[in-house]
Protein backbone atom coordinates (compact mmCIF):
# COMPACT_ATOMS: atom_id res chain seq x y z
CA UNK A 1 0.00 0.00 0.00
CA UNK A 2 1.61 3.32 -1.00
CA UNK A 3 1.29 6.33 1.29
CA UNK A 4 -1.99 8.17 0.88
CA UNK A 5 -2.12 11.96 0.83
CA UNK A 6 -5.19 13.67 2.21
CA UNK A 7 -5.67 17.40 1.79
CA UNK A 8 -8.08 19.29 4.04
CA UNK A 9 -9.29 22.70 3.01
CA UNK A 10 -11.12 25.53 4.78
CA UNK A 11 -11.18 29.35 4.68
CA UNK A 12 -7.79 29.97 6.23
CA UNK A 13 -6.64 26.40 6.84
CA UNK A 14 -6.84 27.07 10.58
CA UNK A 15 -9.68 24.98 11.89
CA UNK A 16 -8.92 22.15 9.48
CA UNK A 17 -5.37 22.05 10.83
CA UNK A 18 -6.94 21.28 14.18
CA UNK A 19 -8.74 18.36 12.61
CA UNK A 20 -5.53 17.26 10.89
CA UNK A 21 -3.95 16.65 14.29
CA UNK A 22 -6.91 14.54 15.38
CA UNK A 23 -6.82 12.58 12.14
CA UNK A 24 -3.10 11.92 12.44
CA UNK A 25 -3.71 10.54 15.89
CA UNK A 26 -6.43 8.28 14.56
CA UNK A 27 -4.16 7.20 11.70
CA UNK A 28 -1.47 6.10 14.13
CA UNK A 29 -4.00 4.10 16.10
CA UNK A 30 -5.40 2.49 12.97
CA UNK A 31 -1.89 1.97 11.59
CA UNK A 32 -2.60 3.80 8.36
CA UNK A 33 0.27 5.04 6.24
CA UNK A 34 -0.99 8.51 5.44
CA UNK A 35 0.07 12.14 5.01
CA UNK A 36 -2.59 14.64 6.09
CA UNK A 37 -2.33 18.40 5.70
CA UNK A 38 -4.54 21.48 5.76
CA UNK A 39 -4.65 24.45 3.42
CA UNK A 40 -6.77 27.52 2.73
CA UNK A 41 -9.22 27.94 -0.12
CA UNK A 42 -6.87 30.42 -1.75
CA UNK A 43 -3.94 28.05 -1.36
CA UNK A 44 -5.79 25.16 -3.00
CA UNK A 45 -4.36 25.53 -6.51
CA UNK A 46 -0.81 25.89 -5.32
CA UNK A 47 -0.91 22.84 -3.07
CA UNK A 48 -2.56 20.82 -5.78
CA UNK A 49 0.14 21.76 -8.27
CA UNK A 50 3.08 21.24 -5.95
CA UNK A 51 2.43 17.98 -4.16
CA UNK A 52 0.82 14.59 -4.37
CA UNK A 53 -2.85 14.61 -3.37
CA UNK A 54 -5.03 11.50 -3.31
CA UNK A 55 -8.17 12.95 -1.82
CA UNK A 56 -9.58 16.35 -0.80
CA UNK A 57 -11.85 16.96 2.18
CA UNK A 58 -13.64 20.31 2.43
CA UNK A 59 -14.69 21.92 5.69
CA UNK A 60 -18.47 22.36 5.71
CA UNK A 61 -18.06 26.14 5.94
CA UNK A 62 -16.54 26.17 2.44
CA UNK A 63 -18.93 23.63 0.95
CA UNK A 64 -19.82 26.30 -1.60
CA UNK A 65 -16.47 25.64 -3.29
CA UNK A 66 -17.35 22.00 -3.92
CA UNK A 67 -18.46 22.39 -7.52
CA UNK A 68 -15.60 24.65 -8.50
CA UNK A 69 -12.96 22.42 -6.96
CA UNK A 70 -14.48 19.25 -8.34
CA UNK A 71 -14.07 20.65 -11.83
CA UNK A 72 -10.38 21.22 -11.16
CA UNK A 73 -10.00 17.69 -9.83
CA UNK A 74 -11.79 15.65 -12.48
CA UNK A 75 -8.81 15.57 -14.84
CA UNK A 76 -6.57 14.30 -12.11
CA UNK A 77 -9.13 11.80 -10.90
CA UNK A 78 -8.90 13.00 -7.31
CA UNK A 79 -12.04 12.47 -5.27
CA UNK A 80 -13.47 15.28 -3.12
CA UNK A 81 -16.02 15.32 -0.35
CA UNK A 82 -17.44 17.79 2.16
CA UNK A 83 -16.86 16.80 5.77
CA UNK A 84 -19.99 16.04 7.73
CA UNK A 85 -20.92 19.03 9.97
CA UNK A 86 -21.28 16.95 13.09
CA UNK A 87 -17.93 15.20 12.67
CA UNK A 88 -16.32 18.50 11.89
CA UNK A 89 -17.73 20.14 14.98
CA UNK A 90 -16.73 17.31 17.25
CA UNK A 91 -13.34 17.16 15.53
CA UNK A 92 -13.85 13.43 15.08
CA UNK A 93 -10.54 12.52 13.48
CA UNK A 94 -11.28 8.83 13.12
CA UNK A 95 -14.60 9.27 11.34
CA UNK A 96 -13.22 11.82 8.91
CA UNK A 97 -10.20 9.63 8.24
CA UNK A 98 -12.44 6.67 7.47
CA UNK A 99 -14.60 8.89 5.27
CA UNK A 100 -11.47 9.83 3.35
CA UNK A 101 -10.44 6.21 2.93
CA UNK A 102 -13.88 5.36 1.68
CA UNK A 103 -13.49 8.12 -0.91
CA UNK A 104 -10.19 6.71 -2.05
CA UNK A 105 -11.77 3.32 -2.52
CA UNK A 106 -11.52 1.40 0.72
CA UNK A 107 -8.51 -0.11 2.47
Amino acid at each position, binding site marked *: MPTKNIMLCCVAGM*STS*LLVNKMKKAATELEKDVVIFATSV*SGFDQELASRQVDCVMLGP*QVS*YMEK*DFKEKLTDKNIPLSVIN*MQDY*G*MMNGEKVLLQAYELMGGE
Partner: protein
Amino acid sequence: MTNKNLWQKFIDRFTRISIKIGNQIHLRSLRDAFAMIMPLFILAGLGVLINNVFFPLFLKGASLTNFQLFGNLIVNGTLNIAGLIIAPVVGYCLARNRNYKNALGAAIVSLAGLIVVMPVTLQALPINGKKAVDISGFLSYSNIGVTGMFAGIIVGLIAAELFIKLSKIEKIKINLGENVPPAVSESFLTLIPTIAVISLLAIISAILFVGFHTDLIKLITTLIQEPLRRVNTSLPGFLLIYSVGNLLFGFGIHQAVINGTLLDPVLLINTNKNMHAFAAGDHVPYIITSVFRDTFGMMGGTGSTICLLVATFLFSRIKASREVTKLSIVPGIFNINEPVIYGYPIVFNIPLLIPFVLTPIISLLIAYYATVLGLMNRTVVLVPWTTPPLINGFLATGGDWRAVVVQLLSFIVGVLFYIPFMKISEQVLLKQNQ
Protein backbone atom coordinates in the same frame (compact mmCIF):
# COMPACT_ATOMS: atom_id res chain seq x y z
CA MET B 1 -45.68 22.70 8.81
CA THR B 2 -46.00 25.54 6.30
CA ASN B 3 -44.00 27.70 8.69
CA LYS B 4 -41.24 25.19 8.65
CA ASN B 5 -41.30 25.03 4.87
CA LEU B 6 -41.13 28.80 4.64
CA TRP B 7 -38.14 28.84 6.99
CA GLN B 8 -36.38 26.16 4.96
CA LYS B 9 -37.11 28.08 1.80
CA PHE B 10 -35.69 31.24 3.31
CA ILE B 11 -32.49 29.45 4.37
CA ASP B 12 -32.05 27.89 0.94
CA ARG B 13 -32.57 31.10 -0.93
CA PHE B 14 -30.47 33.15 1.48
CA THR B 15 -27.48 30.82 1.29
CA ARG B 16 -27.80 30.47 -2.46
CA ILE B 17 -27.76 34.23 -3.05
CA SER B 18 -24.93 34.78 -0.57
CA ILE B 19 -22.79 32.13 -2.17
CA LYS B 20 -23.49 33.62 -5.57
CA ILE B 21 -22.25 37.00 -4.38
CA GLY B 22 -19.30 35.58 -2.49
CA ASN B 23 -18.26 33.29 -5.28
CA GLN B 24 -18.50 35.93 -7.97
CA ILE B 25 -15.13 35.57 -9.61
CA HIS B 26 -13.86 39.14 -9.22
CA LEU B 27 -14.92 39.35 -5.60
CA ARG B 28 -13.38 35.97 -4.91
CA SER B 29 -10.14 37.02 -6.56
CA LEU B 30 -10.14 40.11 -4.39
CA ARG B 31 -10.57 37.96 -1.29
CA ASP B 32 -7.72 35.69 -2.38
CA ALA B 33 -5.52 38.70 -3.09
CA PHE B 34 -6.13 40.13 0.35
CA ALA B 35 -5.28 36.81 1.95
CA MET B 36 -2.02 36.85 0.01
CA ILE B 37 -0.84 40.32 1.01
CA MET B 38 -2.19 40.32 4.58
CA PRO B 39 1.24 39.54 6.12
CA LEU B 40 2.49 42.89 4.83
CA PHE B 41 -0.26 44.80 6.60
CA ILE B 42 0.30 42.89 9.79
CA LEU B 43 3.96 43.79 9.52
CA ALA B 44 2.92 47.43 9.08
CA GLY B 45 0.94 47.13 12.31
CA LEU B 46 3.98 45.77 14.07
CA GLY B 47 6.16 48.59 12.73
CA VAL B 48 3.64 51.20 13.84
CA LEU B 49 3.37 49.58 17.26
CA ILE B 50 7.13 49.57 17.78
CA ASN B 51 7.53 53.10 16.48
CA ASN B 52 4.71 54.85 18.23
CA VAL B 53 4.19 52.84 21.39
CA PHE B 54 7.39 51.00 22.20
CA PHE B 55 10.17 53.46 21.25
CA PRO B 56 8.57 56.51 22.95
CA LEU B 57 8.64 54.59 26.25
CA PHE B 58 12.37 55.19 26.63
CA LEU B 59 13.46 57.50 23.82
CA LYS B 60 13.05 61.21 23.23
CA GLY B 61 13.87 63.95 20.73
CA ALA B 62 16.42 63.32 18.02
CA SER B 63 17.26 59.76 19.05
CA LEU B 64 13.56 58.88 18.95
CA THR B 65 13.33 60.30 15.44
CA ASN B 66 16.35 58.27 14.40
CA PHE B 67 14.96 55.05 15.80
CA GLN B 68 11.56 55.71 14.28
CA LEU B 69 13.12 55.60 10.85
CA PHE B 70 12.87 51.83 11.26
CA GLY B 71 9.09 51.86 11.43
CA ASN B 72 8.81 54.56 8.80
CA LEU B 73 10.74 52.45 6.34
CA ILE B 74 8.44 49.52 7.06
CA VAL B 75 5.45 51.76 6.39
CA ASN B 76 7.06 52.69 3.06
CA GLY B 77 7.35 49.05 2.07
CA THR B 78 3.82 48.14 3.16
CA LEU B 79 1.13 50.79 3.57
CA ASN B 80 2.70 53.27 1.19
CA ILE B 81 2.67 50.79 -1.67
CA ALA B 82 -0.60 49.04 -0.82
CA GLY B 83 -2.20 50.01 -4.13
CA LEU B 84 0.88 49.12 -6.11
CA ILE B 85 0.98 45.64 -4.58
CA ILE B 86 -2.70 44.82 -4.71
CA ALA B 87 -2.98 45.52 -8.47
CA PRO B 88 -0.71 42.71 -9.76
CA VAL B 89 -1.77 40.32 -6.99
CA VAL B 90 -5.45 40.71 -7.75
CA GLY B 91 -4.68 40.30 -11.45
CA TYR B 92 -2.75 37.13 -10.64
CA CYS B 93 -5.58 35.73 -8.51
CA LEU B 94 -8.15 36.50 -11.18
CA ALA B 95 -6.08 34.68 -13.78
CA ARG B 96 -5.75 31.71 -11.47
CA ASN B 97 -9.46 31.61 -10.73
CA ARG B 98 -10.18 31.79 -14.44
CA ASN B 99 -7.84 28.83 -14.92
CA TYR B 100 -5.68 30.97 -17.16
CA LYS B 101 -2.19 29.48 -17.37
CA ASN B 102 -0.06 32.59 -17.62
CA ALA B 103 -1.11 34.18 -14.32
CA LEU B 104 2.16 36.04 -13.99
CA GLY B 105 1.58 37.61 -17.40
CA ALA B 106 -1.78 38.90 -16.19
CA ALA B 107 -0.11 40.27 -13.05
CA ILE B 108 2.46 42.15 -15.11
CA VAL B 109 -0.23 43.74 -17.26
CA SER B 110 -2.17 44.74 -14.14
CA LEU B 111 0.88 46.43 -12.66
CA ALA B 112 1.81 48.21 -15.88
CA GLY B 113 -1.81 49.23 -16.30
CA LEU B 114 -1.92 50.84 -12.88
CA ILE B 115 1.21 52.87 -13.55
CA VAL B 116 -0.17 54.00 -16.89
CA VAL B 117 -3.20 55.59 -15.25
CA MET B 118 -1.12 57.48 -12.66
CA PRO B 119 -1.08 61.29 -12.98
CA VAL B 120 1.98 62.63 -14.83
CA THR B 121 2.34 65.78 -12.79
CA LEU B 122 1.99 66.02 -9.04
CA GLN B 123 1.82 68.78 -6.50
CA ALA B 124 4.38 68.34 -3.77
CA LEU B 125 5.49 70.22 -0.69
CA PRO B 126 9.29 70.68 -0.46
CA ILE B 127 10.84 69.76 2.91
CA ASN B 128 10.60 72.87 5.11
CA GLY B 129 8.80 74.63 2.28
CA LYS B 130 5.35 76.18 2.58
CA LYS B 131 4.24 76.43 -1.02
CA ALA B 132 3.37 73.37 -3.09
CA VAL B 133 5.23 73.03 -6.36
CA ASP B 134 4.39 71.07 -9.49
CA ILE B 135 6.69 68.16 -10.14
CA SER B 136 6.81 65.47 -12.77
CA GLY B 137 8.63 62.16 -13.10
CA PHE B 138 7.41 60.83 -9.73
CA LEU B 139 4.86 58.46 -8.29
CA SER B 140 3.36 59.57 -5.01
CA TYR B 141 2.81 57.41 -1.95
CA SER B 142 -0.72 58.76 -1.76
CA ASN B 143 -1.54 57.39 -5.22
CA ILE B 144 0.23 54.05 -4.94
CA GLY B 145 -0.42 53.66 -1.22
CA VAL B 146 -3.43 53.27 1.01
CA THR B 147 -5.55 55.89 -0.76
CA GLY B 148 -4.88 54.25 -4.09
CA MET B 149 -5.85 50.77 -2.95
CA PHE B 150 -9.20 50.75 -4.61
CA ALA B 151 -7.76 52.16 -7.81
CA GLY B 152 -5.20 49.36 -7.68
CA ILE B 153 -7.93 46.79 -7.26
CA ILE B 154 -10.14 48.10 -10.04
CA VAL B 155 -7.42 48.82 -12.58
CA GLY B 156 -5.75 45.51 -11.69
CA LEU B 157 -8.98 43.59 -12.25
CA ILE B 158 -9.92 45.39 -15.45
CA ALA B 159 -6.45 45.05 -16.98
CA ALA B 160 -6.15 41.37 -16.11
CA GLU B 161 -9.69 40.62 -17.27
CA LEU B 162 -9.17 42.26 -20.66
CA PHE B 163 -5.78 40.61 -21.01
CA ILE B 164 -7.18 37.15 -20.31
CA LYS B 165 -10.17 37.68 -22.60
CA LEU B 166 -8.01 38.89 -25.49
CA SER B 167 -5.47 36.11 -24.98
CA LYS B 168 -8.17 33.55 -25.53
CA ILE B 169 -9.19 34.92 -28.92
CA GLU B 170 -7.59 32.66 -31.50
CA LYS B 171 -7.71 35.18 -34.35
CA ILE B 172 -5.29 37.65 -32.82
CA LYS B 173 -2.69 35.12 -31.80
CA ILE B 174 0.58 35.44 -33.68
CA ASN B 175 1.28 32.07 -35.22
CA LEU B 176 4.92 31.44 -35.97
CA GLY B 177 4.60 27.94 -37.32
CA GLU B 178 5.82 24.64 -36.01
CA ASN B 179 9.55 25.15 -36.38
CA VAL B 180 9.69 27.96 -33.87
CA PRO B 181 10.52 26.81 -30.33
CA PRO B 182 7.39 26.77 -28.15
CA ALA B 183 8.87 29.24 -25.66
CA VAL B 184 9.35 31.78 -28.42
CA SER B 185 5.81 31.51 -29.71
CA GLU B 186 4.60 31.60 -26.11
CA SER B 187 6.20 35.02 -25.69
CA PHE B 188 4.40 36.28 -28.78
CA LEU B 189 1.13 34.84 -27.60
CA THR B 190 0.63 37.52 -25.02
CA LEU B 191 2.11 40.33 -27.05
CA ILE B 192 -0.99 41.64 -28.78
CA PRO B 193 -3.22 41.44 -25.68
CA THR B 194 -0.57 43.28 -23.66
CA ILE B 195 -0.23 46.01 -26.26
CA ALA B 196 -3.99 46.35 -26.57
CA VAL B 197 -4.75 46.56 -22.85
CA ILE B 198 -1.98 48.97 -21.91
CA SER B 199 -2.62 51.17 -24.95
CA LEU B 200 -6.30 51.36 -24.13
CA LEU B 201 -5.57 52.46 -20.57
CA ALA B 202 -3.01 54.95 -21.85
CA ILE B 203 -5.55 56.45 -24.25
CA ILE B 204 -8.18 56.77 -21.53
CA SER B 205 -5.61 58.32 -19.19
CA ALA B 206 -4.39 60.78 -21.79
CA ILE B 207 -7.91 61.90 -22.59
CA LEU B 208 -8.61 62.42 -18.90
CA PHE B 209 -5.38 64.39 -18.38
CA VAL B 210 -5.66 66.60 -21.42
CA GLY B 211 -9.39 66.98 -21.80
CA PHE B 212 -10.58 66.94 -18.22
CA HIS B 213 -7.48 67.70 -16.12
CA THR B 214 -8.08 64.70 -13.97
CA ASP B 215 -6.91 61.10 -13.71
CA LEU B 216 -8.39 57.65 -13.30
CA ILE B 217 -7.02 57.24 -9.77
CA LYS B 218 -8.84 60.36 -8.65
CA LEU B 219 -12.04 59.33 -10.41
CA ILE B 220 -12.07 55.83 -8.96
CA THR B 221 -11.29 57.13 -5.49
CA THR B 222 -13.97 59.81 -5.43
CA LEU B 223 -16.67 58.10 -7.49
CA ILE B 224 -16.38 54.47 -6.33
CA GLN B 225 -14.17 54.02 -3.31
CA GLU B 226 -15.44 56.84 -1.12
CA PRO B 227 -19.20 56.32 -1.58
CA LEU B 228 -18.83 52.57 -1.08
CA ARG B 229 -16.58 52.98 1.90
CA ARG B 230 -18.87 55.55 3.46
CA VAL B 231 -21.97 53.39 3.19
CA ASN B 232 -20.38 50.07 4.12
CA THR B 233 -18.36 51.42 7.03
CA SER B 234 -21.10 53.64 8.44
CA LEU B 235 -22.44 52.24 11.70
CA PRO B 236 -25.75 50.92 10.29
CA GLY B 237 -24.24 49.73 7.01
CA PHE B 238 -21.41 47.95 8.76
CA LEU B 239 -23.62 46.27 11.38
CA LEU B 240 -26.15 45.19 8.76
CA ILE B 241 -23.62 43.59 6.40
CA TYR B 242 -21.69 42.02 9.24
CA SER B 243 -24.84 40.51 10.73
CA VAL B 244 -25.96 39.13 7.38
CA GLY B 245 -22.57 37.44 7.11
CA ASN B 246 -22.87 36.04 10.63
CA LEU B 247 -26.37 34.75 9.95
CA LEU B 248 -24.96 32.94 6.93
CA PHE B 249 -22.44 31.22 9.20
CA GLY B 250 -25.43 30.17 11.31
CA PHE B 251 -26.54 28.22 8.24
CA GLY B 252 -23.16 26.55 7.95
CA ILE B 253 -21.49 28.73 5.32
CA HIS B 254 -18.49 30.76 6.39
CA GLN B 255 -19.18 34.46 6.98
CA ALA B 256 -16.15 35.40 4.89
CA VAL B 257 -18.31 34.77 1.83
CA ILE B 258 -20.18 37.98 2.62
CA ASN B 259 -17.80 39.87 4.84
CA GLY B 260 -14.63 39.04 2.99
CA THR B 261 -16.04 40.58 -0.14
CA LEU B 262 -18.39 43.38 0.92
CA LEU B 263 -16.74 44.53 4.14
CA ASP B 264 -13.07 43.57 4.35
CA PRO B 265 -11.76 45.67 1.45
CA VAL B 266 -13.32 48.90 2.72
CA LEU B 267 -12.69 48.11 6.38
CA LEU B 268 -9.07 47.37 5.58
CA ILE B 269 -8.73 50.75 3.88
CA ASN B 270 -9.96 52.33 7.11
CA THR B 271 -7.51 50.29 9.17
CA ASN B 272 -4.63 51.18 6.91
CA LYS B 273 -5.53 54.86 6.95
CA ASN B 274 -5.69 54.79 10.74
CA MET B 275 -2.31 53.06 10.95
CA HIS B 276 -0.89 55.56 8.52
CA ALA B 277 -2.23 58.55 10.45
CA PHE B 278 -1.11 57.13 13.79
CA ALA B 279 2.38 56.49 12.41
CA ALA B 280 2.56 60.08 11.21
CA GLY B 281 1.16 61.47 14.46
CA ASP B 282 -1.92 62.84 12.68
CA HIS B 283 -5.56 62.71 13.73
CA VAL B 284 -6.80 59.10 13.48
CA PRO B 285 -9.82 59.26 11.19
CA TYR B 286 -12.02 56.19 11.72
CA ILE B 287 -13.73 54.28 14.52
CA ILE B 288 -14.95 51.37 12.42
CA THR B 289 -12.05 49.39 10.95
CA SER B 290 -11.32 45.75 10.20
CA VAL B 291 -9.38 45.38 13.41
CA PHE B 292 -12.18 47.10 15.38
CA ARG B 293 -14.52 44.42 14.03
CA ASP B 294 -12.12 41.58 14.86
CA THR B 295 -11.34 42.90 18.31
CA PHE B 296 -14.80 43.73 19.59
CA GLY B 297 -17.14 41.87 17.25
CA MET B 298 -15.65 38.37 17.18
CA MET B 299 -14.23 37.53 20.57
CA GLY B 300 -13.48 33.84 20.43
CA GLY B 301 -14.52 33.76 16.79
CA THR B 302 -17.61 34.70 14.80
CA GLY B 303 -20.59 35.33 17.05
CA SER B 304 -18.32 36.08 20.02
CA THR B 305 -18.82 32.45 20.98
CA ILE B 306 -16.32 32.60 23.83
CA CYS B 307 -19.29 34.07 25.72
CA LEU B 308 -21.33 30.95 24.97
CA LEU B 309 -18.49 28.72 26.10
CA VAL B 310 -18.24 30.49 29.43
CA ALA B 311 -22.03 30.51 29.82
CA THR B 312 -22.07 26.76 29.18
CA PHE B 313 -19.21 26.13 31.50
CA LEU B 314 -20.98 28.01 34.30
CA PHE B 315 -24.62 27.01 33.84
CA SER B 316 -25.07 24.04 31.54
CA ARG B 317 -26.12 20.68 32.88
CA ILE B 318 -25.95 18.82 29.58
CA LYS B 319 -22.89 16.65 29.30
CA ALA B 320 -22.56 16.85 25.51
CA SER B 321 -22.50 20.65 25.60
CA ARG B 322 -19.84 20.64 28.28
CA GLU B 323 -17.77 18.18 26.25
CA VAL B 324 -17.87 20.44 23.19
CA THR B 325 -16.98 23.38 25.39
CA LYS B 326 -13.90 21.60 26.67
CA LEU B 327 -12.87 20.78 23.13
CA SER B 328 -13.53 24.32 21.91
CA ILE B 329 -11.97 26.49 24.56
CA VAL B 330 -8.35 26.41 23.40
CA PRO B 331 -9.03 27.12 19.72
CA GLY B 332 -11.59 29.66 20.95
CA ILE B 333 -8.90 31.63 22.74
CA PHE B 334 -7.35 32.12 19.31
CA ASN B 335 -10.71 33.07 17.80
CA ILE B 336 -11.19 29.80 15.95
CA ASN B 337 -14.62 28.43 16.67
CA GLU B 338 -15.70 25.92 14.05
CA PRO B 339 -15.98 23.27 16.79
CA VAL B 340 -18.56 25.44 18.59
CA ILE B 341 -20.42 26.35 15.43
CA TYR B 342 -20.73 22.80 14.11
CA GLY B 343 -20.29 20.78 17.26
CA TYR B 344 -22.38 22.60 19.85
CA PRO B 345 -24.10 23.10 17.36
CA ILE B 346 -25.07 26.65 16.51
CA VAL B 347 -25.83 25.86 12.88
CA PHE B 348 -29.58 25.61 12.25
CA ASN B 349 -30.16 25.90 16.00
CA ILE B 350 -32.67 28.74 16.10
CA PRO B 351 -32.44 29.62 19.82
CA LEU B 352 -28.68 30.02 19.54
CA LEU B 353 -28.74 31.75 16.16
CA ILE B 354 -30.29 34.77 17.87
CA PRO B 355 -27.41 35.55 20.28
CA PHE B 356 -24.93 34.37 17.65
CA VAL B 357 -25.99 37.29 15.46
CA LEU B 358 -26.93 39.81 18.17
CA THR B 359 -24.04 39.48 20.65
CA PRO B 360 -21.48 40.89 18.20
CA ILE B 361 -23.83 43.79 17.47
CA ILE B 362 -24.13 44.57 21.18
CA SER B 363 -20.36 44.37 21.72
CA LEU B 364 -19.64 46.50 18.68
CA LEU B 365 -22.16 49.13 19.81
CA ILE B 366 -20.59 49.22 23.27
CA ALA B 367 -17.14 49.63 21.76
CA TYR B 368 -18.35 52.18 19.21
CA TYR B 369 -19.94 54.47 21.76
CA ALA B 370 -17.09 54.00 24.21
CA THR B 371 -14.83 55.33 21.45
CA VAL B 372 -17.22 58.16 20.57
CA LEU B 373 -17.32 59.24 24.22
CA GLY B 374 -13.53 59.24 24.29
CA LEU B 375 -13.35 56.40 26.81
CA MET B 376 -10.84 54.53 24.68
CA ASN B 377 -8.52 55.09 21.72
CA ARG B 378 -9.41 54.27 18.14
CA THR B 379 -7.93 51.14 16.62
CA VAL B 380 -4.64 52.03 15.02
CA VAL B 381 -2.73 48.76 14.71
CA LEU B 382 -3.64 45.78 12.55
CA VAL B 383 -3.22 42.69 14.71
CA PRO B 384 -3.75 39.21 13.24
CA TRP B 385 -7.29 37.99 13.82
CA THR B 386 -5.99 34.97 15.70
CA THR B 387 -4.66 37.17 18.53
CA PRO B 388 -6.51 36.26 21.75
CA PRO B 389 -9.18 38.66 23.08
CA LEU B 390 -7.98 41.30 25.60
CA ILE B 391 -4.47 41.09 24.19
CA ASN B 392 -5.78 42.12 20.77
CA GLY B 393 -7.73 45.03 22.24
CA PHE B 394 -4.62 46.32 24.00
CA LEU B 395 -2.42 46.04 20.91
CA ALA B 396 -5.00 47.25 18.39
CA THR B 397 -5.54 50.53 20.21
CA GLY B 398 -1.82 51.18 20.44
CA GLY B 399 -1.56 49.98 24.03
CA ASP B 400 -4.71 51.44 25.58
CA TRP B 401 -5.71 49.43 28.67
CA ARG B 402 -9.16 51.04 28.61
CA ALA B 403 -9.90 49.06 25.45
CA VAL B 404 -9.28 45.91 27.47
CA VAL B 405 -11.82 47.10 30.03
CA VAL B 406 -14.34 47.72 27.25
CA GLN B 407 -13.67 44.20 25.94
CA LEU B 408 -14.15 42.72 29.39
CA LEU B 409 -17.41 44.61 29.77
CA SER B 410 -18.66 43.44 26.35
CA PHE B 411 -17.61 39.94 27.26
CA ILE B 412 -19.64 39.94 30.49
CA VAL B 413 -22.67 41.40 28.72
CA GLY B 414 -22.23 38.73 26.05
CA VAL B 415 -22.15 35.91 28.59
CA LEU B 416 -25.30 37.24 30.28
CA PHE B 417 -27.00 37.58 26.90
CA TYR B 418 -26.12 34.06 25.80
CA ILE B 419 -27.34 32.37 29.02
CA PRO B 420 -31.14 32.48 28.46
CA PHE B 421 -30.79 31.35 24.84
CA MET B 422 -28.47 28.54 25.86
CA LYS B 423 -31.09 27.42 28.39
CA ILE B 424 -33.85 27.46 25.75
CA SER B 425 -31.61 25.53 23.37
CA GLU B 426 -30.99 22.90 26.03
CA GLN B 427 -34.68 22.55 26.78
CA VAL B 428 -35.41 22.04 23.10
CA LEU B 429 -32.65 19.46 22.96
CA LEU B 430 -34.01 17.60 26.01
CA LYS B 431 -37.52 17.54 24.55
CA GLN B 432 -36.22 16.19 21.25
CA ASN B 433 -34.37 13.44 23.05
CA GLN B 434 -37.38 12.36 25.06
